């Protein structure tokens, strides 16, 4: 049995950077990436010359990692990763950077996601050719190819199994919007009522407009270096206590017969063990929320609510401000903007540093951030972050 506990607290996120979130950035994804990386290095108090590794994920919708490295002027690129995939990979970009730093392969790795997801490349092929994944041939001819359709298929199975209602999904969207109202970066800052949620346009049953994330033009970057070096930098180090990828089987590979559980269910115990933490230790969770059902599913798959009881957990206010486990404290992909998981990592860093202003979870020491939980893509990834005791 492999032992990945060596990674625990060996590395840290020492800087975060973001561009603005908009419907049309007016610039290239390369420019977005460079702006976010520059901001993250400034936040960390590091220089371009400190960077020796780069890591990103994309689906043919953004600039390649090595071109970013060239643009940063890195003459001897010790580590690079250009991971194919969407949000399921997002946390593994950071996790892989942590592995590279922990093993000594690199010393300082910048991780980012840069997309013109509104003005240029919308996920799932609307506005461009279908993605070049083999499985699309079995879906697209049935008018079944875009992410809301795919996630509705899984979401339906979960809703039917546990009697989850439209109001239950609405409470997820409403709780996250309430956080976004107090987030100056958020795209959606008007409070959302249940009537407005229920009255929003149906997209693909059982999903309405406000069950869906906001395709956004934006970039977010974070800087990963060793915990030892982090202690010498200006900002409070946010230690990477655990970083895992997992899952693998999906609708299009045999072995995944239960549509009401994701790949995260199998991975989560390994993540907690690596970090030496339990669900009860987590103070704040930034859960991948391309669509509302994913939040309910992950509350169960990461061990916060018993099977079938996530909707009740949300209805009790546990995920709202002041609740036992505030979730998506920036508004998430539903209300802040959709930067494919990297904005969740950045928000977790803000929360653990105490930088989240009126959205701050008091005394937050441990945060969970997650990638898309393995629906559709099969694989998933997550991080457990913490500040030093």
């Amino acid at each position, binding site marked *: 049995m492999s032992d990945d506990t060596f990674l625990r607290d060996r590395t840290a996120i020492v800087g975060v950077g973001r561009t603005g979130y908009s419907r049309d950035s007016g610039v290239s994804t390369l420019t977005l990436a460079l702006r976010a990386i520059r901001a993250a290095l400034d936040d960390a108090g590091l220089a371009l010359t400190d960077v020796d590794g780069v890591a990103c994920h994309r689906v043919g919708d953004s600039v390649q990692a090595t071109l970013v490295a060239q643009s940063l002027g890195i003459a001897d690129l010790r580590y690079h990763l250009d991971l194919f995939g969407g949000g399921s990979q997002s946390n593994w970009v950071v996790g892989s950077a942590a592995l590279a730093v922990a093993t000594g392969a690199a010393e300082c790795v910048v991780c980012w996601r840069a997309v013109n997801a509104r003005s240029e490349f919308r996920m799932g092929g*609307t*506005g461009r050719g*279908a993605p070049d994944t*083999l*499985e*699309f*041939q*079995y*879906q*697209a*001819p*049935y*008018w*079944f*190819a*875009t992410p*809301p*359709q795919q996630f*509705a*298929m*899984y979401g*339906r*199975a979960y809703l*039917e*199994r546990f009697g989850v209602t439209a109001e239950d999904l609405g409470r997820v969207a409403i709780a996250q919007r309430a956080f976004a109202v107090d987030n100056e970066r958020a795209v959606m800052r008007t409070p959302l009522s249940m009537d407005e949620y229920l009255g929003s*346009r*149906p*997209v*693909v*049953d*059982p999903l309405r407009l406000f069950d869906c994330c906001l395709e956004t033009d934006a970039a977010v970057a974070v800087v990963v270096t060793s915990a030892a070096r982090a202690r010498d930098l200006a900002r409070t180090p946010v230690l990477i206590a655990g970083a895992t990828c997992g899952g693998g*089987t999906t*609708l*299009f*590979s*045999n*072995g*995944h*017969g239960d*549509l009401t559980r994701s790949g995260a269910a199998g991975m989560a115990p390994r993540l907690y063990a690596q970090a030496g933490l339990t669900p009860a230790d987590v103070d704040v969770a930034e859960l991948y929320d391309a669509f509302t059902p994913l939040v309910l599913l992950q509350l169960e798959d990461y061990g916060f609510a018993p099977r079938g009881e996530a909707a009740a957990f949300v209805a009790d206010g546990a995920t709202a401000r002041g609740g036992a486990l505030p979730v998506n404290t920036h508004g998430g992909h539903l209300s802040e903007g959709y930067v494919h998981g990297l904005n969740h990592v950045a928000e977790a860093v803000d929360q653990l540093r105490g930088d989240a202003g009126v959205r701050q979870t008091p005394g937050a020491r441990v945060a969970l951030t997650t990638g898309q939980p393995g629906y559709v893509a099969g694989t998933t990834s997550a991080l457990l972050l913490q500040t030093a005791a």
Partner: protein
Amino acid sequence: MTAPRPAPFVERDSAIWWDAVARHELHCARCDDCGAWRWPVRALCARCGSLAWSSTPVSGRGTVASWVVNRHDFGGAVPSPSTVVLVRLAEQDDLLMPGAWSGPADGAGLAVDLPVAVGFLDVPAVDDTPGFTLCTWRSA
């Protein structure tokens, strides 16, 4: 005007499956050594590791695992309403296959575990796009 169905992008692994569907036969790959079913076609049996397999007819029976109803036309690319089912084939619990629904366009009457049977839909050639055949499912 109804949106055209996108033609499948047939590749070297999948051609044998699409060819069977074009003959109005539903096949899956079956391991010659351990008998496990798999779909879509893959060269290797993930259960026993064998590379030996045969394209083998299935019963064409199954149950509804889930379904979606398109309510948005995605820029004219999708008819609204239209329903897509995900069928769990009778042969094996993890054989899940999307398909067209031959019942009401709004999916009325669908339920998880509803027994269904396969049929075939021949999509005619349009301009430069050759015709192709799809699976469609009905209550059984």
